[in-house]
């Protein structure tokens, strides 16, 4: 973390190399998340690039009280929404099976991946909240900041999302032995 703060300080002072080092820590995680929110792989890469550029350009406005990843995710979520346009259609409506970037990144043997179900069952914001909570291990407060929602909205929708997925899990063959 101290190392990260040093990199942030150097990047704030204008060091592009320091920011590139910083970006290397997060870019794969960000791209993985963006694949769930973009219509195709190329869009996800474009949003990743735009988000990192915006983060570097406006790094002076970063508040160190937040986790750096929270701030990055907030920028990425906004940029992904901008790419989709003002009509705010759900991501699922944009995507076709052949170009689905998430399916492309999941091996054929892993088609039971719960995130595929989550994307079908949950709306975009609830999906994002679930992702940030369980894939990124963010706190409720950090998720609220990243999604620009209240903490109570986040709590309620995390609970709803979990219930929805749980009820869906009880319909599919149980794989709990692998984790028990």
């Amino acid at each position, binding site marked *: 973390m101290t190392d990260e703060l040093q990199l942030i300080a150097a990047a704030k002072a204008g060091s592009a190399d320091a*920011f*590139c080092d910083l970006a290397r820590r997060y870019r*794969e995680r960000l791209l993985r998340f963006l694949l769930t929110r973009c219509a195709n792989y190329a869009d996800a*890469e474009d949003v990743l690039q735009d988000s*990192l550029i915006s983060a570097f*350009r406006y790094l002076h406005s970063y508040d160190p009280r937040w986790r750096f990843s929270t701030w990055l995710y907030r920028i990425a979520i906004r940029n992904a929404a901008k790419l989709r346009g003002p009509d705010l259609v759900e991501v699922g409506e944009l995507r076709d099976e052949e170009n689905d970037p998430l399916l492309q990144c999941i091996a054929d043997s892993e088609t039971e991946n719960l995130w595929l179900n989550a994307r079908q069952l949950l709306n975009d914001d609830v999906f994002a909240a679930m992702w940030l909570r369980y894939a990124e291990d963010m706190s409720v407060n950090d998720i609220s900041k990243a999604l620009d929602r209240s903490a109570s909205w986040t709590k309620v929708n995390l609970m709803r999302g979990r219930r929805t*997925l*749980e009820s869906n899990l009880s319909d599919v063959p149980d794989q709990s032995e692998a984790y028990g």
Partner: protein
Amino acid sequence: MSRTKVKPMDKLAKRLRDDAARIDVNISDELDRRLEASLLAVTPEMADQRSVTPARPLMFWWASTMTGVAAAVAVIAIMNWQAPQQPAADVPLNIIAVVPEIDLKAEAAVLTNPLQEELDNLESDLKKAEEKVRRDIGL
């Protein structure tokens, strides 16, 4: 040794975490070069660049407020200055000369004429009846 019971929620959380990790993503060399080149081309804004800006909105706020007040005063002054001092139209002094006199009596006579005739007829009938009675009794 008893097997530890895993709560459903924890099981779900673990599965979500594991499934997220199974999404196979890697940054290609091409994307790596693209990202690095774009970041090297960025000129970050410095904190002191934005420190100039806070005074501006306050100044704008005052300027817009004063402009609004001045405009309101000007509109009120113009409205009062153009307010009419005289009646909209001249009223004729001699109304009687202009407006024809209505003949109220004539109208009353027309209305009461039938009643008056009826009364006259009744009175003459009464006189005739009195004369007939006097003649019959020999007065």
